[in-house]
């Protein structure tokens, strides 16, 4: 099944034009952070290759999952898209326009279209601001609703949309629970009618019963407003539930990218396979029969990534060539690409 067909099948994509230009296109993105030493004579002693050549695209109304373990660079990819970081190399284009070349004025415009929901509902809301002011701030900053009374009405509407009582507008963040705060974060992101939302571990800090509420809210909102998500998460079960397509990252690179069900039912890259088998399933009978592949060792330092395929020191199938040649993402089946010449038989 091709990506386009899959997208037409997805229920929230019913209105999306599958042949349209992707909303977001990321090409060869690299983000290397310099590591400096010395107090007075600061000199660069190396680079942390947080993101090292990542390419993908996201269609309108689509949810792309970006998964991987801590330090794999998934959050940095999100930050580069929001231009909270200036990438070392590569191109991020949104609706056909290059994000890197934008002026301040154009960036302000972009930030109406691209919004973000952060992980920690405790530190991403200003404790000194009332909920109403927090949600209304983007509307004020972008000059969308200048009149304070009208703005209050819109805030009330947004609160209702996110399942909160409009009276919460007069509360402070500390008066709310984690789940409620995350709803506030979502309402704030929605306030400017974005086309694209980066969710950076948006449900990771929540308890399961609350997490399910927020996941359903994110799904319902997408169905209603048809925006795209870049869903950055380490919890693979949540990603499987929510995303149309999924990209797996390891040490700054995408190792496998496929349609969601294809990736989870038919993982090909040795890292993806190990990652999936490490996730416990809440069912003792399944757990007894499932094979558990335990990865040896730990993720190497991104300051000195291994030569060749970055996964080869932990890979059971690595050959001599893997220590030398850097694998490229190649098509396995239509819509399913991976970076492993061994699996691809090349």
């Amino acid at each position, binding site marked *: 099944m091709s990506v386009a067909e899959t997208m037409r099948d997805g229920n929230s994509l019913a209105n999306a034009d599958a042949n349209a230009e992707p909303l977001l296109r990321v090409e060869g993105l690299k983000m290397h952070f310099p590591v400096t030493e010395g107090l007075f004579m600061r000199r660069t002693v190396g680079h942390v290759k947080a993101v090292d050549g990542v390419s993908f695209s996201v269609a309108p109304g689509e949810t792309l999952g970006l998964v991987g373990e801590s330090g794999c660079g998934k959050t940095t990819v999100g930050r580069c898209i929001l231009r909270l970081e200036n990438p070392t190399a590569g191109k991020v284009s949104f609706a056909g326009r290059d994000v890197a070349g934008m002026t301040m004025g154009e960036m302000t415009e972009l930030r109406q279209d691209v919004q973000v929901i952060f992980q920690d509902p405790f530190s991403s809301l200003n404790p000194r601001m009332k909920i109403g002011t927090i949600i209304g701030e983007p509307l004020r900053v972008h000059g969308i609703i200048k009149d304070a009374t009208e703005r209050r009405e819109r805030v009330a509407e947004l609160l209702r949309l996110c399942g909160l009582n409009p009276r919460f507008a007069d509360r402070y963040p500390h008066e709310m629970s984690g789940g409620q705060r995350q709803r506030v974060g979502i309402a704030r992101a929605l306030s400017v009618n974005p086309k694209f939302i980066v969710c950076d571990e948006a449900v990771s800090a929540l308890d399961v*019963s*609350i997490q399910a509420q927020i996941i359903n809210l994110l799904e319902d909102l997408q169905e209603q407003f048809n925006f795209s998500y870049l869903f950055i998460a380490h919890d693979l079960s949540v990603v499987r539930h929510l995303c149309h397509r999924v990209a797996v990252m390891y040490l700054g690179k995408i190792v496998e990218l496929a349609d*969601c069900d294809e990736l989870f039912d038919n993982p090909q890259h040795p890292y993806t396979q190990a990652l999936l088998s490490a*996730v*416990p*399933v*809440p*069912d003792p009978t399944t*757990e007894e029969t499932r094979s558990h592949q335990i990865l040896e060792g730990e993720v190497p330092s991104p300051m000195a990534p291994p030569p060749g395929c970055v996964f080869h020191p932990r890979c059971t199938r690595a050959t001599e060539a893997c220590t030398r040649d850097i694998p490229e993402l190649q098509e396995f089946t239509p819509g399913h690409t991976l970076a492993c010449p061994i699996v691809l038989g090349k």
Partner: protein
Amino acid sequence: MTRLLEIEDLQVQFFTSDGIVEAVGGISYHIDAGETVAIVGESGCGKSVGAMSLLRLIPEPPGKIANGRALFEGRDLLKLSNADIRNVRGREIAMVFQEPMTSLNPVFSVGRQLTETLLRHTNASEAEAKERGIELLNQVGISDPARRLTQFPHHLSGGMRQRVMIAMALSCEPKLIIADEPTTALDVTIQAQILELMKNLSERLGVAQLIITHNLGVVARYAKRVNVMYAGKIVETGTATEIYHNPRHPYTLGLLASVPRLDQPRGTKLVPIEGQPPDLTRLGDGCAFRPRCRFATERCANEIPNLRSVESNHMSACWHFENLDQQKSTVA
């Protein structure tokens, strides 16, 4: 199997400016020798407080163990003198904490922290303790153990630190290890390594484990028996298979329906538990889960349900556990 730990009606309270928080409201469970038991529940349900109070690690005040018994091989842990409980901690019951970043002391070397338990509890000399430390680090899969002993916690990754914690817990060959969210701060592949390690070690050395977690997947993979906690009480208890395949409490049903699963195709609808967990200072009469429960009746508002037997090894604290099938069918 011999009974290792028997907890009866344990009740822990915290005295705060908002009133008395009933963190643990009278729980009873047991652990047999060599067995792995799990306590699952969401934040604030009292699962950690309940376990910490066994080793009397609750700060008093504001906390207070108000009631109950915890019989460990016949001795009541809650009545031991301070000197006696110190001899239990680390030697007979060891603990692995959640945060490998904060539970090791940053200013002492790994070796010093690892051997401290041995020097305190056994007659080992410094040299013997060091030798045993190397052996322990080897056992938990840390390479180059002699060098690691001289390193400090910040030299180690999160997974390594948790291995050191496990080595410390194992050092005096305890009969029970209490692991409080042992892998929550770790990545999944490292989580799998650590849990597999704990499982192998406990099987080989015959150590019983009490795993405290919110992760239903971890429980399914590693525990034989499960206690589900909500608002300071055990609401359901049974074998893992019974709890997962035949849940008999609306909260357990709700939890299982709200957790996304890796083995379910995209688009499977999650059924969240509506509402919020209750304020533990204002529990009032009746079942604490009632405000969020689809099965609540008037009786639930007036009478607190106690654990009743569903089957021989399965109990539920719900007045209506016989009639949950209707809801269950929508979940399955």
